[in-house]
């Protein structure tokens, strides 16, 4: 993936980069690789204050390699920045990775902000260090699916294809 910086600053990154969207060059090369249907476009991001990005980068890369158009937000995006990115990028889905324990607060807020922007049909899903017993609460607040540690990237790609594919958006 190649960086697309909002501001064309030097790569020391001293200037603010929110929402620092990163577009997948790999997926650009595979434009229309899925046979003429509209390519699935989604935001993959980190909200909250934690910096654990091993998982989110692996998922972003795998979804791009599976032919989807993935916009990676970068670290520590506020719920407002995530929802705004979903609007600006006309995304069909938002996948969030949260390992800070703030999942209940952040998912709820992102769902609210998406709905406020008229993006009720944008599918919200995610993963991270999330206790199984929190999953029902997350689903109730409108999180479509929660993936736990050890999930294969193929399973996530299948889910995204099944849930967001088929020309629904």
């Amino acid at each position: 993936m190649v960086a697309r910086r909002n501001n064309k600053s030097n790569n020391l990154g001293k200037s603010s980069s929110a929402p620092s969207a990163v577009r997948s060059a790999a997926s650009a090369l595979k434009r229309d690789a899925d046979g003429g249907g509209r390519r699935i476009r989604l935001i993959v991001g980190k909200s909250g204050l934690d910096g654990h990005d091993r998982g989110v980068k692996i998922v972003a890369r795998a979804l791009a390699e599976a032919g989807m158009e993935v916009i990676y937000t970068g670290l520590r995006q506020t719920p407002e920045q995530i929802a705004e990115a979903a609007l600006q990028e006309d995304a069909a889905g938002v996948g969030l990775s949260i390992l800070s324990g703030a999942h209940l607060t952040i998912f709820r807020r992102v769902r609210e902000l998406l709905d406020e922007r008229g993006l009720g049909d944008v599918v919200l899903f995610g993963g991270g260090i999330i206790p199984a017993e929190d999953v029902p609460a997350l689903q109730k607040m409108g999180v479509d699916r929660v993936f736990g540690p050890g999930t294969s990237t193929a399973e996530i790609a299948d889910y995204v294809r099944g849930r967001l594919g088929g020309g629904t958006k």
Partner: protein
Amino acid sequence: MRKPAAKNRNIGRKPSRNSGRMVKPPDRRASADGALSAWREACAASHPIGERRATLGGLHVEPIYFPVDHSAAEYAEQLGFPGQFPFTRGIHASMYRGRLWTMRQFAGFGTARETNERYRFLLGRGQTGLSMAFDFPTLMGYDSDHPRCLGEVGRCGVAVSSLADMETVFEGIPMGEVSTSMTINGPAAVLLAFYVAAAERQGVERKKLRGTIQNDILKEYHAQNSWIFPPEPSMRLAVDTFEFCAEELPQWYPISISGYHIREAGSTALQELAFTLADGFAYVEAGVARGLDVDRFAPRLSFFFDAHMDFFEEIAKFRAARRIWARHMRDRYGARDPRSWMLRFHTQTAGCSLTAQEPYNNVVRTALEALSAVLGGTQSLHTNSLDESYALPTEGAVELALRTQQVIAHETGVVSVADPLGGSYYLEELTDRLEAGAEEIFRKIESLGGIYRAIEDGYFRREIAGSAARYQREVESGRQVVVGVNRYGGGAAGPIPVLRIDPAVEEAQRARLAELRRTRDAARVRSSLDALRAAATGGANVMPALIEGAHAGATLGEMVGVLREVFGEYHELDRV
């Protein structure tokens, strides 16, 4: 500034192919015999008699094993005796016969009060050192009532926004007697100031304080991502703490140069080794550039490594790390004090090796990883709890993790012998190869223009992400087996109890801060923040101003806020 010693034949030299076997030029005999008797004396002086030192079957065990032909030059050069250069076999003559490693479980959650209770519980169960985990607001230098902290307060560690919080964490715990490690990086200097101030409130002298602040900002840029300021002012803050500790806190380790996070972000063992030591060299160079004598601060540098699942590779990594550090410190940086040559390290078992599936398997993984750390000669150890793929550990899970260390220490007999696997053809070969591989990576970093240019270039992040992706492919293809996940699945998952953080913690913490802001001496806070700004701008050491700020009741967010104004903020490179 001292010029590094011009050149040494040991640096970057190719290890000989038969380093496990011994060649014997006669002129080395005398010095090797001298080394042996020096080691015998040091060993006899430092280990207590009492515990049984025999196998379960009753066979007597010697404190170390070495080639019968102990005069061999290669033995002296590649391995040496424990406590002697190049420290491949350990930094102490008698290793764990003299003193066990420190059992230090990383802990902290919720409010300062809850964390205080957990610490007392752990000390009561025989833990020998404390290790503070902070929540993300604290790690990022925000007060608990900052709008960006919604939902984060007390979740991943304890919230410490002021001296008052630090005092509560240590209520009833004598700060002059316990050793405390604090995992804090961007705002490390501020939390150290809170700690010093809290100890002063307990009436404990600075020179009695023992502990470590992680304070390793370089690995934040490579892997862990909890940075605040750009690299240059961050390094300046780190050196301020080196200088302050050298003057005021002689028993404190002002940095723990960390490979753990690099490894957890997906690197290989070799990358972890090489990147961490390269960072270590950068700190040495930064201290020397400040005009500090290398022997003044190098003995107080410490390290932190991961213990992952490949048993022998991990042990070889620890041994290679000691040897590389000793050689570079003596021969490249001209350190003369043997304590400057010794790489001392903390180990944590690999969080990323834990699985959410069949969580009880994690107990076994952690035990094996912990054993590798002990066989590799660690100075302190954290063992992960079986439930950490879900949340912070429950009390019961932490107790089991601590018991794992105690079983290794007291039942297995591995502590009787220093470096008991030394001399294994396989282990020595791996140790040599890791050393050679690390030297190659050091040359690569040099060719990129040094560590700061390599950071700007995204070299470390790219390398680590590449290894993480490769590992993921191996797991998904089944070539890398993870028991209970991609092989032998379907075992008992069993609902395991999970620690809950009460959402009321956040509200309580905000109220506490509001109370502090209302009752403190506003003028004193203002003048302490002005003094901090002046020190930060003018280049004076910031530690005295931070400690005065702590006593005045200035908060973490306020003091870091001043530093943000002066230093600016850092943002990620946005490369995947």
